[in-house]
């Protein structure tokens, strides 16, 4: 089920060819999870089509924001890019090399270049390891720094993320949520990655702490030229951090554009609804704001609707939406949308 033809994918504009090949190039990525049944004869009865034909690219030093509702496949996409998940189909090229099928040592080498930061700083750190051990561990796993030089490197990493190097012998539970997230970031940085997949890195943090971590990530990006796949459901945060933004719905990208373009001129009805649903911290604005209230829930990814997957909640849907799946096409410069009735004026 290919929705975009090979010669026109949202990797770069057709009009202005990218000067540099992308660092990561994802083409028609699918990740399906089998649903099994049967006791004697275990067999697959269905599949959760968590990610169902995604194409996008990520350039060196770029931040691509990935947004969409719960269950639309953001984490699965991120995990596939970091190769913590094996794609069902499609390719993921890192510097031109397809990494989607790698195993063993080769896979480990890729994992060093693409690191992941998780939402829950509590769950992602081993409670029985000290901060020094936690940050030093990846250095050992990837044999990056000789054992006797490790403490120096660990101290340097802790300083980079704004933690006191004197705290190496303390345990995760002695730190606040924001500090634990910094430990997770230091661990990811330890192996000098080129890409960081940040999966809801600030969702679990307090409002006043979120800004601290967002600023830290911005500093690291500037200092090391890191590229980020930044997954979040907070659209205001995503606008703040991203250069480009991809909006997902039920395993597909429905819109992909440069940040300012997407927020000012969303073309897809789902993106418009998503943006209008964000409550604004200003009572005057809130009183007069027109809101698009979507009806119904997100359908199951086990049996997505025919045609356009958004049609069951879309106020613009016509017959064709149920019959033909709208391809992701470039409607304006670098602005890709998958909709039969996009809001082009």
């Amino acid at each position, binding site marked *: 089920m290919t929705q975009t033809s090979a010669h026109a994918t949202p990797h770069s504009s057709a009009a202005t060819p990218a000067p540099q090949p992308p660092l990561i190039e994802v083409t028609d990525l699918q990740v399906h999870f089998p649903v099994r049944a049967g006791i004697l004869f275990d067999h697959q009865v269905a599949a959760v089509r968590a990610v169902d034909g995604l194409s996008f690219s990520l350039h060196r030093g770029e931040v691509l924001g990935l947004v969409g*509702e*719960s269950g639309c496949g953001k984490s699965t996409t991120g995990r596939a890019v970091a190769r913590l998940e094996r794609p069902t189909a499609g390719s993921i090229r890192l510097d031109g090399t397809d990494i989607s099928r790698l195993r063993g040592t080769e896979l480990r080498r890729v994992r060093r270049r693409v690191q992941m930061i998780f939402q829950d700083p509590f769950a992602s750190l081993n409670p029985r390891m000290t901060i020094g051990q936690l940050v030093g561990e990846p250095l050992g796993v990837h044999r990056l720094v000789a054992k006797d030089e490790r403490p120096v490197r660990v101290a340097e990493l802790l300083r980079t993320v704004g933690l006191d190097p004197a705290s190496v012998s303390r345990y995760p539970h002695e730190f*606040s*949520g*924001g*500090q634990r997230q910094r430990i997770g970031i230091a661990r990811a940085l330890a192996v000098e990655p080129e890409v960081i997949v940040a999966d809801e890195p600030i969702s679990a943090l*307090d*409002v*006043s*702490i*979120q*800004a*601290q971590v*967002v*600023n830290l990530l*911005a500093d690291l990006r500037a200092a090391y030229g890191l590229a980020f796949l930044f997954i979040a*459901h907070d*659209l*205001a*945060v995503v*606008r*703040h951090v991203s250069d480009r933004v991809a909006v997902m719905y039920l395993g597909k990208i429905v819109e992909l554009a440069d*940040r*300012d373009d997407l*927020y000012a001129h969303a073309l897809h009805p789902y993106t418009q*609804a*998503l*943006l*209008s*649903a*964000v*409550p*604004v*911290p*200003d*009572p*005057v*604005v*809130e*009183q007069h*704001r027109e*809101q698009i*209230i*979507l*009806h*119904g*829930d*997100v359908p199951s990814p086990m049996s997505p609707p025919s045609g356009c997957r958004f049609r069951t909640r879309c106020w613009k849907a016509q017959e064709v939406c149920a019959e033909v799946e709208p391809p992701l096409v470039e409607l304006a410069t670098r602005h890709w949308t998958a909709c039969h009735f996009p809001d082009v004026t």
Partner: protein
Amino acid sequence: MALLEVSDLRTEFTGKNGTVAAVDGVSFTVSRGEALGLVGESGCGKSVTALSLLRLLPASARIAGGSIRLDGRDLLALGEREIRRIRGREVAMIFQDPMTSLNPIMPVGRQIAELLECKLHLSRRRARLRVIELLEMVGIPSPTTRVDAFAHQLSGGMRQRIVIAMALSCQPKLIIADEPTTALDVTIQAQILSLLRALASDLGTALILITHDLGVVAGMTQRIHVMYGGRIVEKATTQELFANPRMPYTWGLLRSLPRLDHPRADRLTPIDGAPPDLADGAAGCRFEPRCGHRQEICGASEPGLVSAPRHTIAEDGHEVRCWATQPDGWLADATTTAGQP
């Protein structure tokens, strides 16, 4: 007379490290039909305040002082049976996780029906019909079949609608909603908030809306109280709080948010440090370690919650707990525009 009058409420937790006051000297009122927002960061005491109101606290907690009056009756003086009559019937609660209120092994409709049978003495048949009406009112599609569904067969948004239907079932005077949409997607949050807004105003139900999301309270409430470290640190009408915040913590919160309604800033302005550990029992202002405006007195003794200087505010009833912005403080005259002193 206000519908709800809470004065000097103090709720303590006792653990192996001694006693901690999670809610410390909290006073506020809610009028009939009014929507009050209670905002603040994790651990500031919002939920403990809410649970104290209905005496639903865990065993390790106790209400150590103050009074809670509903329609003039002191809820703290009531016996266990009497307070149980108030719960659901006069004051209903909506939690962040709908499964806190739903029984996983009973059809959702039956649960609401039982409430109606027990609290309003409706017959089984009448109760069922009323439940179907309620489900329709909260926007559950095909209510006649969904009435027999189990919670696990419903989406998160639908479960929260069921909980709202349950909360409304006995036409309470007050609904306490503790982060009712925090676990939901934004498009579902928008559905639920607009539903709550419409129902509360149609039925004249008063609402205490607890959230950490300033955007949510901006569109939903008439007044807002900001909490920090177990205390109320600022009280104002919703308009006034956003137009003219007076507490440095509120300034910090408003400034740290990236906002879709403002041009994109290059850098966010966080509040340094972390929320206080209540067990520390600091003597001064609880925000002092993180405050950019502190002076010596701030660490030495705690400011009271007092009226902000008349000439700096547009509406009465604006109170602030801060040495700097109280009438004779060093920032008493600071004019603020939308939290940017």
